[in-house]
């Protein structure tokens, strides 16, 4: 939660709200007065509606559960002693869930109070030249998830559905490579997202993306992240001079 908006979300969920109510009223967890807790719970939900606030479906589901448990308790007990022993208290599952939830709620606070890397303690930031010297020139993999996300973001802002028209792509990958190289001229780096600035058709986006992959394969650029999960930047690995023209024919790009 980023803000303390007035919302039921101030409670993590229905379990959190129930825990709060039980504690506040000093109820016995092992003998929860269902009528009282259900009434209070429903009143809070009503209050939310009065204030025109969204009540998440989970809160409504819990309301139904509470009413159900309450009604089961009200049912006259079948007077057969043998069966009665086997029959679990209708509240038992709820109690188990509350205790279990409380356990994780507490430990999450314990976890958060531990010194955290990047918040309370810091490792070194400056890389050692000797170590970096020998690493391969391929950029560090950031995982399939990251890659798809980067592409997804680009596609999200480009409205048209992409058509499967490979011919047009074939024609423009080389052009795109050259235009990216032109943009990189005289610069140290460029943000991945900047390459997709302006309204582009999905097809163009894909072509640009393929061009980037191609440049990486040719080892002319590499992707780096300045923070482990930060923005992705593109760095030229060779000095780019005015009027550089990439000597790449369509054939060598594998579109023959």
């Amino acid at each position, binding site marked *: *939660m*980023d803000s303390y908006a*007035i919302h*039921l979300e*101030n*409670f*993590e*969920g229905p379990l959190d709200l129930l*825990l*709060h*109510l*039980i*504690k*506040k009223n000093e109820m016995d*967890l092992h003998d929860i007065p269902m009528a009282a807790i259900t009434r*209070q719970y429903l*009143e*809070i939900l*009503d*209050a939310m509606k*009065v*204030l025109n606030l969204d009540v*998440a479906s*989970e809160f409504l589901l*819990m309301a139904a559960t509470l009413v159900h448990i309450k009604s089961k308790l009200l049912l006259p007990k079948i007077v057969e002693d043998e069966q009665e022993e086997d029959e679990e208290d209708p509240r038992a599952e709820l109690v188990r*869930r*509350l*205790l*279990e*939830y*409380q*356990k*994780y*709620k*507490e*430990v*999450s*606070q314990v*976890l*958060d*109070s*531990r*010194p*955290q*890397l*990047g*918040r309370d*303690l*810091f*490792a*070194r*930031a400056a*890389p050692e030249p000797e*170590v970096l010297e020998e690493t391969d020139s391929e950029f560090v993999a950031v*995982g399939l*998830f990251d890659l798809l*996300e980067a592409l997804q973001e680009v596609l999200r802002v480009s409205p048209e559905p992409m058509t499967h028209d490979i011919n047009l792509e074939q024609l423009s990958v080389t052009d795109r490579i050259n235009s990216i190289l032109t943009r990189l001229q005289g610069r140290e780096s460029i943000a991945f997202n900047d390459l997709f600035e302006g309204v582009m058709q999905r097809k163009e986006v894909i072509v640009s993306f393929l061009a980037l992959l191609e440049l990486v394969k040719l080892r002319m650029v590499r992707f780096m992240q300045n*923070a*482990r*999960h930060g923005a992705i930047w593109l760095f030229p690995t060779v000095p780019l001079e005015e009027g550089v023209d990439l000597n790449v024919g369509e054939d060598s790009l594998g579109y023959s």
Partner: protein
Amino acid sequence: MDTVELAPLVEALIFAADGPIRADRLAEVLEVEQGAVAAAIATLMVDYAERPRGFLLQEVAGGFQLRTRPEYAEYLRKLGRSRPFRFSRPALETLAIIAYRQPITRTEIEYLRGVDSGSVLKTLLEKHLVRILGKKDVPGKPMIYGTTREFLELFGLADLAALPTLREFGELVADEENVLNVDNLPLLVDGADTEVDADEDPGEGLAEA
């Protein structure tokens, strides 16, 4: 190489590595027995504990790493290297559940939390704190989740066994101070009470406990 020679060398490698470095990798790079590395690390540990240094040698995520002392956090944050995100309560809760209950499915997480956890789970995946372990062999083959090495690094844990012990409760416990004190939030049971009363028939408001 004896321990006296080896210790500063091991220290240099730990210093230069780009993350926690495992003892076996140190042994491999230095071409010495793992026992020799272990002895060197033990020497360094004693040294770091004895002398007031600005950083500590910690065992994290199966490896060793130098990290600044937590009590200096305030000044280090001024260097501008702070992690840009803070955990929300839902994220922390979900992360804790996954850490202790892994491998776990989304449905199981949601049963424990009582709320939909899809977007929180996605955020944790994006932050590389949680990963997909595979699929559970039950109908529907749901994905199962677990924590990552980066989770261990973030919380400074040597391994999963180093997680704080879960307290088993038979009873509810009073909210501790560090637990979010809901009574100070704008929407509180009591707060809502007054708000409602302002606009509505008081009888329709919340019952006094």
